[in-house]
């Protein structure tokens, strides 16, 4: 998958698409296999970038387990009281029980910089379905498999005994523990849809056309073009050593303003070093390519790259996984 961060508006439609499809069962309340965080920020689970895991010099790097509070507990609201209790004019909507101290898309919504040059961007994240999956390699029970045909990484819930070595090992902290079933669970890249030629729910539901789906080595499809041909899509934290298969087109913020309110192009609004810390040193070249192609179109020219990123034809973004899910007779529970 490639996600173009210049198009993400942080609307969380991807998050809700995933939630409604996959994580509605008991024990999954606090799970968000797809999250969208504001960057810079502490993310979800909070401070996940400092939790270790992954590999350093090819060797496993110990990681720590996030707590449920780090992920953010599922908030339970007094909907019944407000909407059905006949007290709508007396009570207001509020969280039931203990006030939560952290939640995705809430306390993490941070950003950085000073007015008028504050900056932020949204970072959607799913399991990276890594080429070198730390989770799979950490599991002592071989309960995690990487599918031969497409590289989707899946947890076999029958093999899983809830030991959570995978949660420690995943440097992206994208594995959740189901306290009801006592097994670990995570993004399955909508494999039942992929098997039917349907793109993931997060990709299809995205109003911003942020997400591209397809095989990395399909030279006629957008992933290869963006990652390997144009080299404008990069993995998040490549130094974690797991070789993610989710890539990001880095964000270009509006230009800075100087003290007089004039455009100041001398340096970028989002500091280069921050983007390098997220996407590695190759991000600078990627930004140059993006800016060059944008300038071309601004001058009235054509850019194959910009056309690709705009996604004029929605279905062209899905690398052949463009079947309409409504056209399929889905087996319940299958």
């Amino acid at each position, binding site marked *: 998958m490639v996600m173009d961060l210049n198009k993400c508006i942080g609307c969380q439609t991807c998050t809700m698409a995933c939630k409604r499809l996959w994580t509605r069962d008991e024990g999954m309340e606090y799970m968000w296999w797809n999250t969208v965080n504001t960057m810079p920020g502490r993310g979800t689970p909070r401070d996940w970038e400092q939790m270790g895991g992954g590999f350093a010099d090819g*060797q*496993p790097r110990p990681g720590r387990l996030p707590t449920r509070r780090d992920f953010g507990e599922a908030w339970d609201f007094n909907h019944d009281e407000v909407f059905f209790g006949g007290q709508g004019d007396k009570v207001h909507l509020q969280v039931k029980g203990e006030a939560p101290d952290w939640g995705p898309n809430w306390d993490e919504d941070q950003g950085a910089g000073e007015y008028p040059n504050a900056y932020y961007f949204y970072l959607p994240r799913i399991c990276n379905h890594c080429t070198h999956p730390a989770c799979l*390699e950490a599991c002592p029970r071989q309960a995690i498999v990487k599918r031969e045909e497409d590289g989707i990484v899946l947890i076999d819930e029958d093999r899983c005994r809830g030991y*959570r*070595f995978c949660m420690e090992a995943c440097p992206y902290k994208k594995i959740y*523990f189901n*306290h009801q079933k006592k097994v670990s669970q995570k993004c399955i890249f909508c494999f039942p849809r992929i098997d039917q030629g349907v793109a993931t729910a997060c990709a299809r539901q995205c109003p911003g056309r942020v997400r591209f789906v397809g095989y990395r080595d399909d030279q006629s499809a957008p992933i290869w073009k963006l990652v390997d041909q144009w080299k404008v899509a990069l993995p998040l934290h490549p130094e974690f050593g797991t070789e993610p298969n989710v890539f990001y087109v880095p964000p270009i913020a509006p230009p800075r303003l100087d003290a007089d309110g004039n455009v100041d192009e001398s340096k970028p609004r989002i500091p280069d070093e921050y983007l390098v810390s997220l996407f590695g040193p190759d991000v600078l070249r990627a930004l140059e390519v993006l800016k060059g192609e944008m300038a071309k179109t601004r001058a009235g020219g054509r850019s194959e790259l910009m056309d690709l990123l705009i996604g004029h034809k929605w279905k062209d973004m899905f690398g052949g996984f463009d079947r309409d899910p409504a056209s399929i007779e889905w087996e319940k529970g299958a």
Partner: protein
Amino acid sequence: MNVRYLAGRDPAELLDPAAPFWKDSRPEPLRLVGTPSSLQPTAAVRAAWPDARIGAIGAVTVDAVHDGTQLAFRLEWEDPSEDRAIGDTTVFPDAAAVLLPSVPGAPVITMGAPGVAVNAWYWRADEERAGRQVVAEGLGTTRTVDHELVRTHATWKEGRWQVVIARALRVDSKEPVAQLRAGESTGYAVAVWEGSRGERAGIKSYSGNWRELVLAPVA
């Protein structure tokens, strides 16, 4: 260890760690040691768990009785923390197991080997009375083959766990589980996991190689 024969016991009584008949016996004290880090199945586990961190529980006492049909082990050990529920993602429950060879000569240290299975009767503090019957043919190969035949009952008081793990001597199973007979001997080993220290899977204390288990004949 000699397993006493007690005639005609009620199954609930056999499972009770406070049943009077346990008081008449002299349980066997076992020293436990941590499993070697080098034998953990994955590099990530080996990196996170050096030898010094493994094996929180250093001693357990073991006792066992049978009534000709059921065999009950009673384990007792000191543990200041009662870790029953998985309250958070970072929390692990206490656990214990008795290991028996399904096939004579199956290795303990590697949890069996291909074609030479071992059979664990496993209790975990968050799973109430349902024990697990586990079969393994090598490190990382454990699988639960049933949730019904092994019964457990655990009490924690005054900083000590008292856990009874019981199963029928012989069970109807296609799986390579231990089939026992009164009057015969086999081997046994014990493992204990300390939840508060994050022990789970191969991270545990164990009693080393097989010790002899002699089942008294039915009198």
